[in-house]
């Protein structure tokens, strides 16, 4: 029980996929201009991650080693297409805003990373918990970044006005920069800084290469 809880809790901050493992950054930059798209993307990714981890863990004894990556990608890609179709059928407006980024969950290192590093070696239960924890960790960062960018960039949250903008007769001058991709880099950078200020053990010794694995997907 204790380990089950820690599997979900650890990836939230200590081993957060974005701030610690620097995985899934590309989509984190793209879909966080507003909170609603960040929420939907988080949900889509978490669902894909859980389902793919469950399926891959279920099949793990029968996936031949030589074609394991192809099999994993095939499963992940199919799940992503199905989720994308469902979003376009039931959340039409939001799926418009997400555009290609749901499809790009396929190339999100986070999903393949968890499949390869965890689900291939562990039973279904722990794999799903691990996926859920990582999905929630990703969601946490996306929601934080999305909230900050929408609030400062548009003066609203989930479309509801929080700060009355000057164009609507209020006092707030929206920060245009917040709507551009670099703003997400700055915010994620500041978050990484904040987390490492508290968890000093996360700081790499100087002169050593940065966290392995990933790339900016």
């Amino acid at each position: 029980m204790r380990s089950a809880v820690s599997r979900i809790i650890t990836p939230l901050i200590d081993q957060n996929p974005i701030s610690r493992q620097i995985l899934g950054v590309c989509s984190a930059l793209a879909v966080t201009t507003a909170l609603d798209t960040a929420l939907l993307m988080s949900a889509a990714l978490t669902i894909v991650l859980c389902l793919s981890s469950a399926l891959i863990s279920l099949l793990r004894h029968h996936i031949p080693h030589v074609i394991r990556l192809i099999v994993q990608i095939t499963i992940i890609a199919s799940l992503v297409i199905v989720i994308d179709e469902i979003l376009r059928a039931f959340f039409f407006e939001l799926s418009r805003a997400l555009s290609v980024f749901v499809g790009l969950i396929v190339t999100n290192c986070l999903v393949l990373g968890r499949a390869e590093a965890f689900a291939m070696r562990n039973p279904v239960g722990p794999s799903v918990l691990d996926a859920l924890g990582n999905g929630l960790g990703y969601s946490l960062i996306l929601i934080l970044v999305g909230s900050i960018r929408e609030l400062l960039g548009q003066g609203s949250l989930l479309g509801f006005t929080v700060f009355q903008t000057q164009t609507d007769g209020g006092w707030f001058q929206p920060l245009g920069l917040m709507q551009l991709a670099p703003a997400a880099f700055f915010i994620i950078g500041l978050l990484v800084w904040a987390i490492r200020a508290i968890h000093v053990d996360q700081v790499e010794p100087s002169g050593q290469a940065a966290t392995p694995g990933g790339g900016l997907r």
Partner: protein
Amino acid sequence: MVDPRAHRPGLLARDNDDPVKIVAVAGLVALCSALAVTAAAILLEPRQAAHLEAEQAARMAAMLETLPAMAEVLAESGADSLTTRLVDLATGAFVDGADPADYDAEAAAADPASAVTIPAELDIAGLRQRAPHAVVHILEQDGEVALVILPVSGTGYQSRIEALLALEADLRTVAALTITAQADTAGLGARIEEPAWQALWPGRVVSDETGAIVISVVRGAASTPYEVDGISGATRTGNGITNMLRYWLGDHGYGPFLARLRDGGL
């Protein structure tokens, strides 16, 4: 010769490096994935299509409401005075015998059999090919054209832009421009969808005295009737709109049709 069936283990019991199992697993995974994807695509397709249609219809209705001429004419003569016609873009003539409601311009533009390739030097809107016909809406008043509504499409910064352009009776003055589809950067290019920006269009003039199409979205503030204020940070989206209108109003677009309307009315 060993009989292959002599001691044939079950497929799943085979060693993972066994070539038969590798092929079988790959095939099964591919088959299951294909089934899942196909089922999702087929089952959800009607629902998605309904969303798309509803969106287009809502945008069209919203645009018609904002046109002042529209409200007057409709009040006088009822909704029937808005006619929908199919136009052959090459000749500018109406296509008779086909129901415009059945014409799917998007499919016709994608289908190699019907699509018209746009010569590269004319393809400023980045479309590569277009449908041979277009569905236009014409509002008549006392037998005269009061308003024409033309569907146009082009390429923005990162997405395809689709819009409806309404021209007044002189076929030069913009009555309205409504963006019906786009996916440019949220907060920048996507602001072309905002009513505040679209409200800049009515009254703008698309062509000068010689008939040349000169309308453009400029950086900063507009200084002539042929210009529309651009959106800061969305120069390329603005250029996309300029090129879209210049292509569609030009000789390869609605040029022949507009010339015909100008010469002989309906």
